[in-house]
């Protein structure tokens, strides 16, 4: 129950989750991080070319958080994803081309131009699209968990939020009901050091991971730039939730390496802080680790580049939405619940799923 800042042990007791991750899993983790970064870099280029309307937000430097955590999810688990967490969408099965089409407001983007940038969740893949009132989705995740609990299903809801969200009262309501009902929810707190321009020391007096104990469930703090450490914590939390152990708060210590949005020059960030974190880039660090383990990272890079080229070409050909459709769809005619997402972790391969789902 006690809050710990120690690196979590993996389910099999190995230090970094290697016992849970096959060689293919590790290659996939790297691929998803790389794909997230490449997709966001391409989207930023499209923004600068004037092809992405409005503003532009990304999760540059935070790739290990969403990839490491979402990788632990099973197909029937559900996710409420934050705008810094493209990796989670990619893992659930959203193609990069659709993300780019979404950013450009095209008809075939996930929201068909109804909402912009990262405000999406593919309902067919078990994701609920976020709103700008960021802590709100923590309560929606509690509701997903509530449904699993009422129906006695061994499933998990995962949600992501920044440390900025922990200052809002809605966050307290979510933690409190999750604790009271021991809901199967995994709360991933990504502390990227700033809420827009507001630094940690203006956001809280005590590290928010410490609050978990007060809500009656464990809080753990992990290196948010180490994808396997994040995965290991998330896998343990999912297992706990799935077996009736209740929620877990995982704080991932990381850094927002870009501005809050593309319009933000980050003048408030001390250069030495950026330098410190630049030396700990999650994608580069993992590449070095895998290369040392003999995994062909260059081949993965080439594969991601090719995928992104294809997808960008596709996205640029997509039509804009038809103006008269702007008033369609305010109300639903039928209620179709969320569908299942992809679950690339080897544990969820079809022949093994039956033992867990």
């Amino acid at each position, binding site marked *: 129950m006690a809050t710990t800042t120690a690196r979590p042990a993996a389910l099999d007791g190995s230090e970094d989750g290697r016992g849970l991750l096959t060689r293919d899993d590790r290659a996939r983790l790297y691929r998803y991080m790389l794909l997230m970064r490449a997709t966001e870099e391409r989207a930023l280029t499209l923004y600068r070319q004037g092809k992405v309307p409005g503003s532009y937000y990304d999760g540059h430097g935070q790739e290990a958080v969403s990839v490491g955590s979402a990788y632990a999810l099973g197909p029937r688990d559900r996710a409420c994803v934050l705008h810094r967490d493209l990796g989670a969408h990619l893992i659930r099965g959203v193609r990069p081309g659709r993300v780019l089409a979404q950013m450009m407001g095209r008809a075939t983007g996930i929201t068909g131009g109804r909402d912009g940038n990262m405000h999406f969740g593919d309902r067919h893949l078990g994701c609920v699209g976020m709103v700008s009132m960021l802590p709100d989705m923590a309560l929606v995740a509690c509701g997903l968990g509530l449904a699993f609990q*009422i129906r006695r299903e061994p499933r998990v809801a995962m949600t992501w939020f920044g440390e900025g969200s922990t200052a809002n009262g809605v966050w307290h309501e979510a933690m409190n009901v999750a604790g009271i009902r021991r809901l199967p929810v995994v709360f991933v707190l990504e502390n990227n050091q700033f809420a827009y321009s507001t630094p940690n020391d203006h956001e809280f007096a005590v590290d928010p991971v410490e609050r978990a104990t007060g809500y009656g469930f464990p809080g753990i703090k992990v290196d948010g730039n180490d994808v396997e450490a994040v995965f290991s914590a998330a896998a343990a939390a999912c297992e706990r939730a799935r077996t009736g152990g209740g929620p877990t708060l995982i704080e991932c210590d990381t850094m927002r390496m870009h501005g809050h949005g593309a319009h933000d020059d980050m003048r408030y960030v001390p250069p030495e802080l950026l330098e410190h974190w630049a030396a700990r880039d999650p994608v580069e660090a993992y590449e070095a680790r895998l290369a040392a383990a003999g995994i062909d990272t260059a081949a993965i890079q080439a594969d991601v580049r090719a995928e992104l080229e294809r997808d960008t070409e596709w996205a640029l050909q997509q039509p804009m939405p038809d103006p008269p459709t702007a008033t369609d769809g305010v109300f639903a005619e039928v*209620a179709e619940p969320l569908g299942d997402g992809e679950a690339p972790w080897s544990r969820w391969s079809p022949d093994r799923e039956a033992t867990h789902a």
Partner: protein
Amino acid sequence: MPELTYLQAISDALREEMRADERVFCLGEDIGRFGGAFKVTDGFIEEFGPDRVWDTPLAESAIVGTAVGAAVEGLRPVCEMQFADFISCGFDQLVNVAAKMHYRQGLAVPITVRLPSGGGFSGGPFHSQNPEAWMLQAPGLKVVAPSTPRDAKGLLAAAIQDPNPVVYLEHKHLYRRTKGEVPEGRYELPLGEARIAREGTDLSVIAYGAMVGVALEATEDLDGASVEVLDLRSLVPLDTDAILGSVRKTSKVVILHEATRSCGVGAEVAALIAENAFEDLDGPIVRVTAPDVPIPFSPPLERAVLPQVDNVKEACRELLAY
């Protein structure tokens, strides 16, 4: 057909939906062991158990927000705000998460939010409000406000089975004062259809909720005038055909509601009539509403603010004489 109170009809609708549809569950403050502040869910926790009758902590965002999550997973949550006034604390989840979800993401959010609303019993500024106009500015919400036990039951069943978030305004003043015949068993009334509470030819009074009864009483014997009373029942969708049909028949219209005046339902209905039936009018559109003030506590002050039978009589007489 049995005679039930408005409150019994609401309770019956909820109980029958829960019995027939295991997806339906309710959540709210003090609704379980205590049976609800107004006893709508009295006995529910004994019948359905604590999983389907959740005594939540005092956290309205949590009530609405968790309902959204459960709904998109296939359940049919029915939220109770202890008083309609408290929806302000859960408003963000209602108007930003629930209302916009289908338009943005194609994801339906079938939740019902029950709002015990209205004044007339010295509830004061925080237990008497009629907050429906707040909801009308949030596209994606349906809003209903029944006035009779029969409608209360059928509209609640329809709200629960509707694929959209539905705000269900139940007027506290009607709970035990209003009785009426209610069909046995499950039935739904369509959302978006007004009801002619009394036919007439000289003037239309358009009202909803507790004000339907006030309109009927005020115009029952109004110097022999034939006054039509139209009960909107649903504010979103609004039954524009019924409104315009009544106005075209009588050519004079009084719009009556208990909520405050500016930008209220009456303003919307008046604009609708002005835009679409201007040539049919034989007099100005008249509104009888609460003035733009918080609802005061002390009985003489509250009576001065909430529309009374005499206010309606006076407004109708003036318009009939126009």
